[in-house]
């Protein structure tokens, strides 16, 4: 529903009223809206309203060559684009029978984990901002910027990298970038205590976030919650471990969980995940220093590339949860169908509607951010 043609329903006289929350709000990663019915400041009902960022990617992908879609997929999720590239590439690889060379697999893991850190920093800053703590936002964004510099160096682009391609990656790593990644990780670790002080040990945060937007493990499983949100409710489930891809089986990392299932728990899971991503990245750096070889398997001429008929469902653990790509080929030069399953399709709609119910108006933004809902992923 659009605000301009929104006409409030005539309600019988009551204390209830409706509020159109959005579509522009700093507490949301992209344009999105929630209609809330309130009694006082207590939410009686919340109705998610998307579509502001619908770009028709699934339709467009049917009209483009297999290789051309690498330019579209990162745009499905702005703050965490790499898992989209990975999921699409892997779907094409599964359909086309492509083997990704080892070096490329490690580089892809590196990209995925840097992207996870970036996204968590973004969420961390945004989440704090929803409760009025803007310093965190600046810190999160500025720290993220250091990682974006690395992206720029590796891929030539800061946000939409269009770097992972079916069969590998598009360029080898520049000289010395592993050293600079290491230095950035050191800086990240140096600053972690500051984030701790500023956010996680902050009385305001704890007061606002504890007990807010609680999802029980049972509900989480029933409602299709995944990723850090599910782990915040206590289930140590992670696609990287359960349905492994690339070289994740060769890596040591823990799957952090919290049990409370509230906004604070979810943020704490993310904080712990950043630590794990740093741990992964340090292993990747070490391995990449010793692995030479091609960065991409030979590909057919992209203008004459038919992929055998079939279908593939690939899953990737993004910073927000389970990303799924279902790709169908009819044997032609373009995908017959690509269905994108973003974790926020659950988190930002049915889950959000349920969690908000009974909550307070001032918590809407925080709850949404604590779920790390990504509207562009919902709308596609």
């Amino acid at each position, binding site marked *: 529903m659009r605000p301009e043609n929104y006409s409030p329903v005539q309600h019988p006289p009551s204390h209830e009223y409706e509020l159109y929350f959005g579509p522009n709000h700093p507490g949301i990663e992209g344009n999105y809206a929630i209609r809330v019915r309130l009694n006082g400041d207590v939410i009686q009902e919340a109705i998610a309203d998307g579509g502001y960022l619908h770009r028709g990617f699934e339709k467009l992908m049917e009209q483009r*060559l297999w290789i*051309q879609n690498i*330019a579209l997929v990162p745009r499905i999720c702005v703050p965490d684009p790499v898992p989209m590239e990975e999921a699409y590439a892997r779907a094409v690889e599964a359909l086309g029978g492509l083997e990704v060379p080892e070096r490329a697999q490690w580089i892809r893991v590196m990209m995925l984990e840097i992207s996870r850190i970036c996204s968590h920093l973004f969420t961390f800053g945004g989440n704090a901002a929803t409760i009025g703590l803007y310093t965190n936002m600046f810190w999160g964004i500025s720290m993220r910027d250091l990682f974006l510099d690395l992206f*720029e160096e590796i891929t030539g682009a800061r946000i939409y990298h*269009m770097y992972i391609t079916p069969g590998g990656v598009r360029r080898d790593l520049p000289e010395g970038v592993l050293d600079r990644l290491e230095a950035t990780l050191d800086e990240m670790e140096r600053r972690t205590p500051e984030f701790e002080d500023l956010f996680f040990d*902050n009385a305001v945060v704890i*007061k606002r976030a504890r007990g807010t937007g609680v999802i029980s493990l049972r509900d989480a499983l029933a409602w299709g919650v995944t990723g850090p949100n599910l782990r915040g409710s206590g289930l140590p489930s992670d696609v990287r471990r359960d349905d492994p891809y690339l070289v994740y089986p060769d890596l040591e990392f823990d799957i952090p969980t919290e049990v409370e299932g509230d906004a604070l728990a979810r943020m704490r899971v993310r904080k712990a995940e950043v630590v794990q991503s740093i741990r992964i990245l340090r292993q990747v750096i070490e391995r990449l220093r010793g692995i030479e070889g091609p960065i991409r398997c030979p590909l057919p001429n992209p203008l*004459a590339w038919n992929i055998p008929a079939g279908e593939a469902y690939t899953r990737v653990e993004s910073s927000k949860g389970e990303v799924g790509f279902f790709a169908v080929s009819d044997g032609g030069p373009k995908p017959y169908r690509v269905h994108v399953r973003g974790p926020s399709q659950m988190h930002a709609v049915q889950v959000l509607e349920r969690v908000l119910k009974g909550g307070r108006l001032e918590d809407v933004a925080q709850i949404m951010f604590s779920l790390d809902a990504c509207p562009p992923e919902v709308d596609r």
Partner: protein
Amino acid sequence: MDVTPKYKGSFVKPLKALSHLFREPVTLPMVPRPASDNYRGFHVNDWELCVGCGTCRQICDNAAIRMIHIPGLPDDPAAGLKPRRPAIDYGRCCWCALCVDICPTGSLALSREYVHVSPDMNTYFILPDEKGIHGLNFPKGWAKTDDADLLDLARQPMPQRDPDSRGDNFDEIVHGYDDQAAILEASRCIQCGMCHEACPANMHAPEYIRAIWEGDKERAVREIYRTNPFPEVCGRVCTHRCETACSIGKRGAPIAIRWLKRHAMAALDDERVRTIALEGKVEDRTGKSVAVIGSGPAGLTAAFDLAKLGHAVTVFEAKPEPGGMMRYGIPEYRLPYDRLDADIAVIRAAGVDIRCDSPVGPDLPMDKLRDDFDAVMLATGLGAGRSTRVPGTDHPDVKSAVALLDAITRGESIDVPGRAVVIGGGNVAFDIARSLARLQRKTSGRVDMTLVALEERDHMLADEEEVVEAREEGVVVLNGRGPRQVVLAGPSDKTLGGLETVRCLSIFDEEGRFHPKYDDGDVMLHEADMVIEAIGQASDTGYLGEDLTEALEWARGRIEVGADGATSVSGLWAAGDMVEGPDVIHAVAAGHRVAESIHRFLGGGTTTLEAAE
């Protein structure tokens, strides 16, 4: 930090943020920061390298690239140069840089320039050169790398007979691609169409390559027959201008277009080919008749077209079999006779009446032909061999390559020389050298064959594979040597002793003109029982008779024709080697033009077979 629900958090710790007051700010000054080494900024394009193939436009997923025709740029279809360059619409570009990764020449790159601010929409549509969007010469960012090239620059190898199994026979050397290799080879094509424009006959190579890739060989054959009734021949011995122009060939091996054509033809049986070739044949007869003199590619192509258009065509051939140089010049190991016969059978099936052993001359005078037929086409080729005329070339054991090849085709017995020297560096020279070498091996088990060419190794007129294969077969190729004289075996011995050659220092002068310079201090004697001259051919137009010769206009010793092959004499056309010099595909192209012109002359209007289809 405590996580128990009781823990309420600290009010003091967040105040540590105040310490940041004394830190260096993270914000950056308001000047553009230098971009990373492989940044994807605005496009740059090296116009010297760019050939205008338009592959960037094809790969662009946002239709952000338009090709701009720019008059004045090099426009050379034969070299694969089109006078056009890509322009980028930054209202559509998403900087995926696939255009860079696919660019066949490597001319396109993204620069490290990334700032452009303007309220004027028109400034977002740019025609990039090597200086970039604002002419600021920013360094290249994302550019082509070897390990990320999207094009396959290596050709599928052609399976063929090894030297041992081919040196003593005339079996075809090339086996042809199998389906798998053909599809892989066809898949390398980027469909830029340079080949189409470079081909004298404008064959629809992109279309048939694509059809082969799709496994649809019927469509491939159909596309081939649109412009060429000699696909079996051209699939083997074409001079493949298309491959010279191929964009993939700018950095790698061009698509093996010729071999792909051969593959498509081999995939269908002759009956099916015939059906496809005769699609579109006009069933109504026009009642007009055309005589074609000479059954080489030019004559038969015109005959085929005209017959399909409903005219009664009779071809007069002096030799016992049709095909001209394709039969009597090209050795069988390059072009098996049965494949040539297959092409000619299709032409006959179109209704063309080919009469062999029918030389125009006293028994069949030119005047009679002109009286009996509504139109006459001359396509008698270059049948006579040229001689260097150095001293001694009048010796009976100095032979002409053309005459010898003719004799071999006819199956005449030849006194195979124990030792032979061939003068010449073109394909004909190699044809005779390799043919005689086979006969030598067959008769005596050993090859003693020397080929002397004026040209240096890198500038041979013959195809590269001819040189390589000839060497494999035992032919000694000597480059940079010019003939000085043919010598006798001894002062009183009239038998042939050999050929004396002198070192050729250079063939061309600074202006590229033929001007051989010799080093008289470097003379070699090549002992031989036979010397074969294979330097060039001449046409014999004596059959025209004095009157017609006088009536025709001539230019540089050849009959002068218009673009459509019409001579200055009404009702008379000429085409092929005798007009344009030796080349099958040029002859085919000329044959089409003549057919179209004759058809128009006979009142057929402007309908062409292409249009009729």
